[in-house]
């Protein structure tokens, strides 16, 4: 069953008196538990597509249906609720909150869900266990390596047990060893929890882990195929 349906999606951004078309007539479907990625050069529309799926942006034309909800028809509150309950984000620069420790960074999404203290603790510890950071719960982000920061970011995105995780260039700031470690962790979570992972990347290391690769160029889907190079 598809949890993401992209139908005839067009996204225009105003530039001067005209428009720049970032996405042009995109049609895609993603099922539950997919481990897929958008690849392509800079400006091909990868991040814009992730933002629309993540309900941070809306289509200019066409539809993006995420978890049976049309993104363009959602109010601000409904969008926030969708993100909070069903979508996790992982960023290139980790974007952890610097004044909070590992535990508190992971806990933040759950505070928005008004979960009880004991439930929160259980969920946070479980998420940190998935990424192997239970011994660092008191550490602040500035005390962690880049790889550890990204693992905290994964735990933060996974703690609420989302249906979809959107990862925008998650390995761009990591060395090869850490990149593999991160990707293995995400792959494991994908397989164990059946979470859909969607990547925007041009890192070949990432591509090797993907089950499905959607290649974008100038806002159009150039190819959409199963990954033969998979590890």
């Amino acid at each position, binding site marked *: 069953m598809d949890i993401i349906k992209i139908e005839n999606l067009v996204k225009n951004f105003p530039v001067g008196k005209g428009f720049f078309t970032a996405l042009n007539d995109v049609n895609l479907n993603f099922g539950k538990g997919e481990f897929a990625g958008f690849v392509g050069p800079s400006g091909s529309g990868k991040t814009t597509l992730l*933002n629309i799926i*993540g309900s941070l942006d809306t289509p200019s034309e066409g539809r993006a249906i995420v978890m049976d909800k049309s993104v363009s028809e959602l109010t601000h509150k409904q969008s*926030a609720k969708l993100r909070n309950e069903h979508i996790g984000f992982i960023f290139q620069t980790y974007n952890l909150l610097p*004044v909070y420790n590992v535990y*508190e960074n992971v806990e*933040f999404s759950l*505070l928005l869900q008004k979960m009880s203290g004991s439930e929160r603790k259980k969920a946070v510890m479980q998420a940190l266990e998935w990424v192997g950071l239970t011994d660092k719960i008191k550490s602040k982000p500035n005390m962690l390596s880049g790889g550890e920061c990204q693992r905290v970011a994964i735990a933060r995105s996974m703690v609420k047990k989302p249906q979809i995780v959107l990862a925008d260039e998650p390995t761009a700031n990591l060395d090869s060893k850490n990149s593999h470690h991160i990707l293995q962790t995400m792959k494991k979570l994908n397989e164990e929890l059946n979470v859909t992972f969607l990547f925007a990347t041009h890192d070949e290391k990432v591509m090797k882990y993907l089950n499905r690769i959607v290649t974008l160029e100038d806002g159009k889907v150039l190819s959409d195929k199963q990954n033969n190079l998979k590890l």
Partner: protein
Amino acid sequence: MIKFLIKGILRDKTRSLLPIIVVSLGVFLTVFMTAWITGVFGDMIDLSARYTTGHVKIMTRSYAENKNQLPNDLALLEVEELLKTLNNEYAELEWVKRINFGGLLDVPDENGETRAQGPAAGKAIDMLSPDSKELERMNILKSIVKGRVPNKQGEAIISDNFAEKFNVNVGDELTVFGSTMYGSMMFKTFIVSGTISFGNAFLDRGAIIIDISDAQMALDMQDAASELLGYFKTGAYDDAKADTLKSTFNKKYSLIEDEFSPQMFKLRDQDGLAQYLDMADSMAGVMVFFWIIAMSIVLWNTGLLGGLRRYSEYGVRLALGEEKGHIFKTIIYEALIIGFLGSVLGTLIGLGASYYLQEVGLDFSSITKNVTMMLPQVYRAAITPQLFYIGFLPGLVAMTLGNALAGYAIYKRKTATLFKELEV
């Protein structure tokens, strides 16, 4: 969530300590400046009240019209009876009688011949009654340079300047020449018991201070006085009360057709003080207003910069599913917490510094000694009820407003545009 926010505020010094310092400083300066301006103008008014105007003053209608000439022939009569009435009907004031007189001071040599002469600006006050507060009110005890205050009739204190100039020493004799209330010639010899310096040219020039009983005898003013001064027992001038007193007294006792009938004046009515007080009020108001505006802009900017610095954090929070409205609310809560702490701290420090300057004051006597205006020697701050909120409210409002403005951008922007701007 509130606990989470407080943790963030406490841990992030640039989010808490810096804004708290800026808010405290702004609030402190507002409180302190207000206290200082209020105190300085209050001191000037108080000085005038103590030496010349009282909080209210009673003179005859004719004396009031010509008071610069010290016309004791137009002085109040039957003052003991009038004082009794005033003490009964206006008991919230302490009433004192004073005589002002002009004349010539003559300093004799060992043969009794004139050695030196100079003009005298005489003031007669009650120095010998045991319950009189006049010495304290006119700060005479602290202003004595040599000798002591008179403790019996026939003694006088004179300006230390005059004593120096004419080589008059404590214990020397000095004769005052002038005219009695009835216009005949008066001369009376006094023993100099001490010299005095108020540190102010206006008060020190040719000053001679004698007891009122001596003046009444010498000037033939038994049961008479130039003026009766009333002081509120609270110590503070209350213009509204003074106005009521003046109206009721004048309605009852002051007769237009009788030039010798008593007439009451309040402090504001005398010596152009109304204009001075109004100017003082508006100056203080204008200064405080501009000060508050300036501080509000500084605090507003602090809030704005604090908000802008955390744009990327807001981006992450949006992505994690926090509503824009909720982020905006937390920004306001944080600003309220920081604004409150900074304002409380600034108000406390401001009150502390103002209290210190209220008690100790700043001594400007060395600067004002040659000034011919009647100015205080020591300027003090004054703690008034408005100090408790005059800095507190702008501190709280400006901080919150600054953060609200920064947060408004988040609230109004489209999520997608905002997310891009937030550099996540």
